[in-house]
């Protein structure tokens, strides 16, 4: 165990530690960030009202839109020069959300990921091949800092260049792969084609995350790579990967509760639900000097369990994410909102477009098709012009969401409407639930 004192702390002590940190966090947010000051004052709730952990329920929720409204640096509680790194996640519309990190927070990030890598059975002898993208996306760097903290050897290869990945895996003797489930399955196929024998390669663990998956996908990954695969959960707004990580019991993800306070709410009423109930995960940063995020609605659906895990850890466990309480889609590990597609279409044609998003996973990789009904303004007598309109729509959408899509132009009113005349915006044929 990486940090037995914390990871096996008694529940009482964890709650006591969390209360202390929560009080400090709320006070800091109220004193340093005008956004919180105004929001809490309007709700007539003040830092001194937080006398128990349950009192957190008095505080209003924080949404992605709130964070966007503070773009870029409005949520920072420290001087900008204290921030040594920023990351960003896509927004539903308009501006993205910016997450800032001080040196101490980068260290903390490494700490929690190092704990998780240890849960997966890794140590400083290991070679971790990290196929998560390095960039504004937090996936790559989070794993990177955790590997450094652990003292393992990290291969920061990023996503793509799949044949090279396979070559490096074999030549360097990687003992751990980090990937999104769908990329992992693809990587496995290519590795097989290249004649890699995973019995011989001797991987010790797989860490995967950043998109929804099913038990069947895990089975397929474990079967392919001949090793155990562990779930990693995180989101940029709070930090990045490592908020929850799975142990050898593979029975839910241990939340780093000394850094995050989790709650489950009914997404419709906002009322807190008891242990074991399924609902929306709400997270609070307990130790984030630069950017206290309090009661953030993740929109991810899961349940929490507080009984001691068979691995001996007392940290709460969250189940794997089984859905969303909003219309966000994860495609190839990337968050996609229908409103982004709409925004891109408006840029192309300047009129309300009628469209439908169809997500499939024909075999192993997600595919996204956008059906757009042709309209007067999109139509021209010139076939070259039509093809270029189609290409332009694809480019605008890719620009907005960051991944390539297939666009098809279909006849007006050919997308089925409900009796109220509404198009079902998203058809997800992947069966991930």
């Amino acid at each position, binding site marked *: 165990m990486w940090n037995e004192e914390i990871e096996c702390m008694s529940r009482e002590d964890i709650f006591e530690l969390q209360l202390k940190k929560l009080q400090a966090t709320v006070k800091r947010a109220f004193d340093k960030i005008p956004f919180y000051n105004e929001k809490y004052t309007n709700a007539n709730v003040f830092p001194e009202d937080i006398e128990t952990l349950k009192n957190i329920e008095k505080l209003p929720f924080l949404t992605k839109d709130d964070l966007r409204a503070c773009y870029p640096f409005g949520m920072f509680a420290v001087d900008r020069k204290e921030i040594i790194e920023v990351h960003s996640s896509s927004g539903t519309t308009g501006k993205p959300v910016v997450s800032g990190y001080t040196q101490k927070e980068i260290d903390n990030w490494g700490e929690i990921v190092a704990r998780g890598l240890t849960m997966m059975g890794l140590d400083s002898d290991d070679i971790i091949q990290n196929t998560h993208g390095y960039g504004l996306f937090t996936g790559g760097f989070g794993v990177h800092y955790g590997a450094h903290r652990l003292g393992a050897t990290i291969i920061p290869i990023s996503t793509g260049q799949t044949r090279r990945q396979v070559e490096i895996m074999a030549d360097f003797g990687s003992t751990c792969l980090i990937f999104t489930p769908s990329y992992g399955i693809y990587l496995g196929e290519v590795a097989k084609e290249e004649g890699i024998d995973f019995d011989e390669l001797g991987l010790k663990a797989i860490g995967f995350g950043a998109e929804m998956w099913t038990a069947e996908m895990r089975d397929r990954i474990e079967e392919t790579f001949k090793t155990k695969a562990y779930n990693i959960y995180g989101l940029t707004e709070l930090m990045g990967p490592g908020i929850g990580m799975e142990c050898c019991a593979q029975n839910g993800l241990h939340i780093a509760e000394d850094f995050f306070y989790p709650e489950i709410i009914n997404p419709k009423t906002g009322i807190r639900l008891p242990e074991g109930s399924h609902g929306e995960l709400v997270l609070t940063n307990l130790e984030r000097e630069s950017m206290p995020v309090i009661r953030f609605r993740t929109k991810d659906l899961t349940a929490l369990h507080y009984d001691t895990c068979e691995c001996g850890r007392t940290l709460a466990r969250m189940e794997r994410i089984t859905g969303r309480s909003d219309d966000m889609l994860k495609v190839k590990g990337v968050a996609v909102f229908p409103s982004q597609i709409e925004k891109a279409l408006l840029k192309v044609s300047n009129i309300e477009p009628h469209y439908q998003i169809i997500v499939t996973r024909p075999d192993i990789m997600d595919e996204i098709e956008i059906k757009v009904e*042709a309209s007067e303004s999109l139509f021209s*007598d010139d*076939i070259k012009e*039509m093809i270029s309109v189609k290409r332009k729509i694809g480019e605008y959408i890719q620009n907005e969401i960051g991944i390539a899509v297939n666009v098809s*132009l279909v*006849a*007006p*009113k050919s997308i089925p409407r409900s009796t109220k005349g509404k198009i079902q915006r998203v058809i997800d044929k992947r069966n991930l639930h």
Partner: protein
Amino acid sequence: MYKITQLSIFLENKRGKLYRVLDLLAKNDINIRALFLADTTEFGILRLVVQDPIKAKEVLESNDYIVKNTPIIGAELDDTPGGLSSVLKILKDEGIDLEYLYAFTHEKSDSAILLLQAKDLDELIGILNAYKVPLVPAEEVYNL
């Protein structure tokens, strides 16, 4: 008077789509003079010259088709070998790029009608006139 109103219609490249348009026109008593289909694997543009373009457009639009009026011109050709190539030679020599063309013959004479589309129709009309290629007035094409 030489600009013929051609209807351009968006169609999905799927079984039955062309039939449905043509059936709709037939049921509304609209006679088709000439037809040309440009297609990609996924969609196509159906170009029609009909007897009554105004009525045809109304009928199509009220059935949710996207229809554009595209002016084209019609040139009369001898329906003999070399008739078409002689016109194309003129256009090549004059440096005119055609967008597309199609042709049809009819019972009333020995000539064929060549339908032409170019970026600058007035320039095209001017050149054909200068070479004394007879142009067919729009009304005549509709009522052949």
